């Protein structure tokens, strides 16, 4: 039974037949010039999130005996004209071939985003006793050395829709770099919030960027800095460890805490913050390596399958699968190295691993995918890389 459709009839039925012809007419009247691909959103996307950036070391600053800051500029010869803009607190992942290994490490960008307009990033490397990459940087990297780095990444940044306008940063060690970048950005008018930095260290000589930070805080009343020294009782410094009492004077009804530092520091800081009984949203952590209870009967054989090659290597239960692969020089596609970004997502074909809770997406967890950067073998393992 046909419906009564007011004003629609035979003529409209005939129009159906004309549809392909009418479509053709429009197509034929249009231009056959090459297709436009220069869209603004794509161009800005490529500028802000390049897959790779080629950089060159343009300067090296010795901060102290075991710490150096590397100033990076674009390596124009390799095809990078301009470094990508970033949000203070973000990191870049740098690829470092050392002997037969191929390593990647995330380093926080410690300068202001303003420096990007002069085509500069700074990263700060601190010597770790057995750190292959940090020792290489401190002992072997020279001006004019070239590297491949990722675009800026990471979620440790100030977000006005989420964070309080009063921020207290609790930092130690190299953790100061992300906060320094935020302070510089406040100074440059790029960020707008009140920042109190409570900077913990053993002794005065361990404080990085002390002069820079003091200069910024002197000139800008949004920024305030205090130091807490555990091994030195000196005037104008707190003596001992970070405590509720040290924090309290800087608290406002709504305060966000940004915590950045070594794992031991994060642990003790979280214990202090617990006393304030704050909702989760007011405590933000810079990327850190979560806790895993390690167990194993070493060493294990790890078979790594890529679409081009199969590798066999050994890995100890105290070592991540990613780290074992890096030593073998296997290209791994990792970025954050704390389980967060998911770039190294790989399939656990067989075997067992121990890993940090809560890093995997539910569907990945259910289908035996792991992030090798936070996975420790607990048996022999067969791992299939995604490419």
């Amino acid at each position, binding site marked *: 039974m046909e*419906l009564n*459709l*007011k*004003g*629609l*009839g035979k003529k*409209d*039925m005939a*129009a*159906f*037949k*004309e*549809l*392909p012809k*009418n*479509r*053709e*007419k*429009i*197509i*034929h*009247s*249009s*231009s*056959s*010039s*090459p*297709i*436009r*691909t220069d*869209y*603004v*959103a*794509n161009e*800005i*996307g490529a*500028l*802000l999130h390049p897959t790779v950036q080629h950089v060159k070391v343009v300067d090296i600053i010795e901060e102290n005996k075991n710490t150096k800051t590397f100033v990076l500029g674009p390596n124009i010869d390799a095809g990078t004209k301009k470094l990508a*803009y970033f949000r203070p607190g973000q990191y870049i992942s740098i690829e470092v071939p050392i002997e037969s290994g191929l390593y990647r490490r995330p380093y926080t960008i410690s300068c202001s985003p303003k420096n990007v307009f002069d085509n500069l990033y700074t990263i700060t490397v601190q010597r770790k006793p057995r750190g292959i990459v940090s020792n290489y940087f401190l002992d072997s990297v020279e001006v004019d050395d070239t590297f491949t780095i990722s675009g800026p990444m990471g*979620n440790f940044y100030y977000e*006005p*829709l*989420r964070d309080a306008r009063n921020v207290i940063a609790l930092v130690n060690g190299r953790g100061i770099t992300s906060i320094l970048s935020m302070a510089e950005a406040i100074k440059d008018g790029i960020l707008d919030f009140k920042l109190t930095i409570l900077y913990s260290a053993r002794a005065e000589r361990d404080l990085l960027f002390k002069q820079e930070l003091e200069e910024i805080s002197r000139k800008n009343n949004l920024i305030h800095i205090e130091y807490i020294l555990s091994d030195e009782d000196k005037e104008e410094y707190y003596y001992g460890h970070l405590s509720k009492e040290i924090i309290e004077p800087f608290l406002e009804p709504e305060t966000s805490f940004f915590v950045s530092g070594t794992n031991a520091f994060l642990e003790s800081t979280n214990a202090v913050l617990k006393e304030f009984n704050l*909702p*989760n*949203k007011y405590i933000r952590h810079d990327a850190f390596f979560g806790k895993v209870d390690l167990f194993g009967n070493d060493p294990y054989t790890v078979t790594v399958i890529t*679409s*081009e090659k199969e590798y066999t290597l050994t890995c100890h239960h105290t070592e991540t699968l990613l780290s074992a692969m890096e030593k073998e020089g296997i290209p791994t*596609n990792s970025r954050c190295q704390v389980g*967060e970004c998911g*770039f190294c997502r790989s399939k656990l074909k067989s075997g067992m691993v121990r890993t940090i809770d809560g*890093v995997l*997406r*539910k*569907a*990945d967890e*259910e*289908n035996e995918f792991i992030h090798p950067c936070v996975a420790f073998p607990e048996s022999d393992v067969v791992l299939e890389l*995604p*490419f």
Partner: protein
Amino acid sequence: MEKKYDCIIIGAGNAGLVAGLELAKNNKKVLILEKENAPGGVATSFKRGRFEFDASLHALGSFGNKEHPGEVYELFKKLGIVDKIGFVTIPEAFHVYSMNDNANYKLPFGIIEFMEQMEQYVPGSYDALKKFFVLAEESKEALSYIEEKKGNADMAYLKKNYPDFLKVSTHTVDKVFDAIGMPKKAQEILETYWVFLGSPASKVSFVHFATLAFSYIAHGAQLPLKKSYEISVVLAEEIERLGGKVKYASCVKEILFKEKKIAGVLLDNGAIYESEHVIANLSPTSVYGSLIPNQMVPKDALKLTNSRVLGARGFSIFLGLNQSAKDLGLKDYSYYILENLDSNKEAQNRRSIKNSSSAVYVLNNVIPSCSPKGTTILEMSSFFMDDVFSKNVTEKNYFDMKSKIALNMINAFERTTGIVIKPYIEEIEIATPVTYARYTGHPDGVIYGYKGTGMDNLLPRLLSIESENFIPNLRLCGGFDVKLAGFSATYLSGDLSARLTLQDMIEEGEEEWN
């Protein structure tokens, strides 16, 4: 790794994955090349703190359930994955709020229930709605027939079986609503569905609008328990189980030809894979504009692509809230917060950077366990028409601009519903046209493909499948293709492209035989 395949698929989006599985099930050696490190394209998820957000899916239409299967259910059954994924049914069709006249309407699923509720809101709308659903159902059947015939429909058959479909087939939603005497207010409420299509009632084809709205209201809508990413992972796993290969972090740079015939693809790292068949799960803008050297692109393909208009540019806000939905007073799953119920006026609003309309989804009201106890996942999805975002954004103002737009939308939600959410934001992520452009590679951050309006609406596209197959053995699929955008459409598009490719393979075999 093998270098030669029966078919190479560029892109592991919804359509690419379905096409890959369909071919693998037909014993074809298939290689899917994906530039990202995981399957799904926008059918993915991401973690922030203790929350896992779905990047794009808010309602899977045309699915239904075992008793009342929709097309996508049937497809997933055919592919052997329907039992591998847990699905939950969304409780209500939509709850729409209009900012300009301070009214709100909540509509249920089910044709009868929907008509009865609408009659309450707009007395006298029942009969017109009945006509609407009859027309929609007839149109749906007619479309299946046309697709089955690959666009070569028999006019006499159509006239005999689908006369009303033919009468409305060339008209817009507005025009047909008037013809069936749909009261203005009921038109506006029903038009809420336009936000899934990205073109307003005066522009979008009735057949497209009605068939989708019909499926949605008749079949209801579902969500996978573990986000749309679960579907993507299961599809990819199944392809590999059947001997196919999905290779990630592999960006195709060029489609290769040998003596003017499809010969394979070249990756940006220099690797070459050979195949006489390619399915491209990306936009014709990318395929004909970037992947094929211009001199190899047929003139008609250039003309068609140049004649098309980019559709809606996406803008989404993902919020992890540190209170339960109940404590916040969030009772519904979907809140459509529109500046104006009239889709034509609303489309105009979305040509402004001040647009504050969005579709707001409270995932916990469908899947209570989707986030930790005492928390809520709330996602806001919106879009801009034309290039208004691009016209305003710069590298320098980008982060400020996206926060500002997000704040506008969050404020509009709070103002309109009276529900306060800002103080409870524990995690926030904002995706803009720049995000979509970078992640999908689609031009200007488009999320709904080309505008499905004028002569580029669903029907003319469907009628031209074969005549627009410009390069033999190269099939396109995804949200820019004949079935237009959306989850169901792209899954079905993948299936269509695989069937067409299988046919291309058979025809080829016949030629060789002859």
